[in-house]
């Protein structure tokens, strides 16, 4: 069964450093998403991406964040200058034909900012 994959599973970085989190969505999906979940808190929407552009973003997704689909398979989230409060699980998700229908989540990347 196809699944969303994410790398790395755990990323440790120093405050102020740039990180890139990588995702490979399900191959025939058209809609891509990033979410984050701070330990013990709810899953929070960051950004959705369709047709090679951002379709929606939350107030969390400020200028420090960017997303890219550099080729036909990868979907990346870049945090330019990490802050302590960026420490969280970051989940990538992809969806099929229509946006915001059922979404398939990856296993997540745990980001720890020191």
């Amino acid at each position, binding site marked *: 069964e196809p699944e*969303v994959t994410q790398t790395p599973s755990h990323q440790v970085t120093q405050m102020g450093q740039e990180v890139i989190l990588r995702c490979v969505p399900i191959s025939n999906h058209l809609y891509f*998403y990033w979410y984050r979940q701070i330990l013990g*808190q*709810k*899953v*929070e*929407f960051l950004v*959705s991406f369709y047709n090679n552009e951002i*379709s*929606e973003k*939350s107030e969390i997704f400020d200028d420090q964040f960017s997303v890219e689909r550099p080729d036909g398979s990868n979907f990346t989230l870049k945090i330019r200058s990490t802050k302590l409060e960026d420490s969280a*699980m970051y*989940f990538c*998700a992809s969806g099929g034909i229509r946006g*915001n*229908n*059922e*979404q*398939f*989540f*990856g*296993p*997540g990347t745990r980001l720890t900012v020191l």
Partner: protein
Amino acid sequence: SQKIEQNSEALNIQEGKTATLTCNYTNYSPAYLQWYRQDPGRGPVFLLLIRENEKEKRKERLKVTFDTTLKQSLFHITASQPADSATYLCAGNTDKLIFGTGTRLQVFP
């Protein structure tokens, strides 16, 4: 602001009983609600989606209802098993998915 609210207290039930979890939404009208299962350290796994014009949806031992008058969805697991123990997330859509905090279900033998 738009909110999805779930009972943050854990629900403990005995194996074989029906678990019922509640999801309420405020300050918006989602076109559909989704339910996900999340195990510790893992990503959410999609279970069911129900549209606002559907009263009820079933899948195997799972049943979801959507009451637009009460602004509420109920999620039922019948004949619950210890393997059903997890956190269950409710999510409503507008232009993005808004998740609740989830309700932790513990099924004991």
